[in-house]
């Protein structure tokens, strides 16, 4: 069994596509769509990597990222942020909050898979 990825995203069709891609390569994939409870879900599941959307209901990706980085257990957890808000200001905010990789929608599947592999490999 491959590494464990938690996909935090509220667009159901994006979830299905990314879940398919990751599962096909042997990753164990869990999904979560609610921003408000995302931090708690990460604490419970302890994934090897989080794919995190920027705009989520309940709490945005930056706030989730900030909370996770404040917890020593997840300070170095690989987090790939996907966003439809690709402006420089958002990227800067994400980088300040400690994102591992930042990717703008619409992304290519190859970009996502390469980023996931690289991040997990770097974390090992």
């Amino acid at each position: 069994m491959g590494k464990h990825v938690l996909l935090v995203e509220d667009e159901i069709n994006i979830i299905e596509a990314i879940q398919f891609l990751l599962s096909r390569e042997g990753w164990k994939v869990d999904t979560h769509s609610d921003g408000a409870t995302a931090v708690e879900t990460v604490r419970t599941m302890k994934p090897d990597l989080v794919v995190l959307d920027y705009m989520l209901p309940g709490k945005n990706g930056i706030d989730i990222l900030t909370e996770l980085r404040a917890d020593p257990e997840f300070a170095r957890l690989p987090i790939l942020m996907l966003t439809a808000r690709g402006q420089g200001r958002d990227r800067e905010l994400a980088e300040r909050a400690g994102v591992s990789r930042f990717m703008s929608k619409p992304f290519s599947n190859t970009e996502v898979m390469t980023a996931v592999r690289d991040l997990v490999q770097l974390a090992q």
Partner: protein
Amino acid sequence: MARDALTGTRIRERRAMGGLKQSDLAKQIGISASYLNLIEHNRRRIGGKLLLDIAAALDVEPTVLSEGAEAALIAALQEAAQRARLPEEESARAEEFAGRFPGWAEALAAAHRKIADLQRMVETLSDRLAHDPELAASVHEVLSTAASIRSTASILAEDKSITAEWRDRFHANIDADSRRLAHSSKALVGFLDAETGEAAPSGSPQEEVAAFLAGHAQALETLEGGDAEADRLVTTATELASAQSRHLARTILDRMVQDSARVGLSDLKDALSSHGPDVITLAGHFGVSVPHIMRRLAAVQQLDAGLVVADRAGSLLFRKDTDGFAIPRHGAACPLWPLFQVMGQPGQVIRARVEMPTRDNAVFDCYAAAEQVGPAILNAPPLLEATMLILPAPDTPGARDVPMEQVGPACHICPRSGCRGRREPSILSDGFGGF
């Protein structure tokens, strides 16, 4: 230098433009070349028949020589000079420039006016693009749907071993997403089209309300018909296209009706003529709160006053524009406005002279005060509302000699550099320097 004192300069330029020698013109009008030379160097005043003769010889209207370029042209040139930060002595030569090079002066003034118009348009559109929640949601929807379609289509195109079940599922997803994309793209294009159309609807409920208030200033000054009049205005207003804007407008009008019941327009005008716009004295005179009197003063058309009301979170609940004091339609306003200083001291009244970074650095007298709204609740912090009345400062010689706070509209459309209140870069180039 006085405008008529430059008649000689204009004669010299017109003669040169026509390719006429000084001696030939002098001969034509029956004076010596040396006397014409003195006239052309503004060392002899000229008028009467001699001016008419020279104008006839140069084939121009006498006023072109005596009055020079139009006042508006001179004003536009002086504005352009100030904008370009030319030294004062250069700016003072605007009329001379217009007299000597009328064609170039017209071209420069026209370019300056065009730039000013475009800058206003950029400010408006930038304000909208940067902070409009409808646009942000629309763009997010388009990009998210495009991401889904791109990812799913790639899987279908590249993975030949995909099972029939997954293939059907992804086909269905693409079908649903493509419909969604078509819908959200149309909505986005419709939104952007509306931005450029002159008669386009204003977009957000707040803007519809602003357009409604601006279009009914006279009726709102009195609201003599009370509730019935407020009803009629809201139900017949073409500016209020949505239920939300009608609700907002009705809420505002309800308060205006209550305000005008205690402070009638004719009484207010009488008191104004006695006390001037002194909000504390006027509030005492009518036995109402200072924010109450500010709201009433804002409705008096002759004052041409602006008004802003904000809650403690900084959200602007009400805005009435006045020329030169830009109030952002979306997002946060300038934190240096006196409006925000009174939040910590309900009951305190602040009067401050402020300067806006407009082309002519418009100056305003702002009165601000905060008061509690709603009922008191035990152990709960009070809800506060701050009100700021914006009065154009009197155009007197000493108007700029008193201490002034340099404020702006909102950071993203404010050109001030090195501002202590700056929270984000400005799209106007000067503003980046201080961020």
